């Protein structure tokens, strides 16, 4: 019994530690989770500045080559959430590492091109070609709790 409790405490401590450094605030908006999450993980809004989210939402008809068009009212719901919780508006902690690399007024569109991302992802091509991975934006292939904002 005591052993179990100790194990439980250890597990808790580990989670708390993750919350301190690796943790990114998870997405909570149901429209973002549903619409963005239909095709890829709904990336945490702090990884891009608000103006980047707005540009992405203005270009859904050609979303990295995909037609990801959504009804206008849905787009506005998503825009409200993403821009209010973006790296430059609601970002704390982990997000700062990403925003440091964003030029003032710059509008990056790919999180995976941020040096803060690249620095942590120097892998041989074979890793990216793994059939479980498919693309660099498939966080969940390796970070099993990425959708909860935990990148370990």
């Amino acid at each position, binding site marked *: 019994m005591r052993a179990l409790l100790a194990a439980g405490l250890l597990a808790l401590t580990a989670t708390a530690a993750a919350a301190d450094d690796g943790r990114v605030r998870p997405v909570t908006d149901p429209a973002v989770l549903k619409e963005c999450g239909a*095709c890829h*993980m709904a990336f945490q809004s702090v990884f891009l500045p608000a103006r980047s989210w707005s540009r992405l939402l203005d270009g859904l008809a050609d979303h990295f080559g*995909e*037609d990801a*068009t959504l009804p206008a009212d849905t787009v506005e719901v998503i825009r409200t959430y993403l821009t209010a919780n973006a790296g430059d508006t609601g970002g704390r902690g982990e997000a700062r590492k990403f925003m440091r690399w964003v030029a003032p007024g710059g509008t990056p569109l790919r999180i995976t091109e941020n040096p803060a991302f690249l620095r942590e992802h120097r892998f041989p091509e074979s890793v990216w070609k793994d059939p479980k*991975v*498919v*693309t660099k*934006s*498939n966080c969940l292939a390796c970070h099993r709790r990425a959708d909860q904002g935990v990148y370990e």
Partner: protein
Amino acid sequence: MKRSILMAAMLALAPALALAGDPRRDAILSDYAAEARRVDPAFAAFSAQRGETLFRSRWSGGDPRTPSCTACHTADPRQPGQNAKTGRPIDPVAVSANPRRFTDKATVEKHFMRDCKSVLGRECTPVEKGDYIAFMAGY
């Protein structure tokens, strides 16, 4: 005359009703049947077999990563799939494995639009959409 139109309408509805499961899915199917009849008054019924052919065929004209619906939904729609473009897992699309499929019109329309463009390089017709649902509902 009136009666024969009514008969035709009932006949056209019959296959949709035969699949009866979720009334929302039936409503989506009868919407597509009405659209199909508007394009072709001789339209009779959806065909699960044609739906399966649509699902399994290798098309050209779409994205080379997705020549077929099976590229993401796998050859066995009762199994989970994987998005060939993003790597994200996809829940099974056969109704027997996932009864919530094809019950929300907006979701269904959105995916037909995206996925048909991705695979066929064009939108699917109302007949193709109804056939596809008929196949998935019976699979």
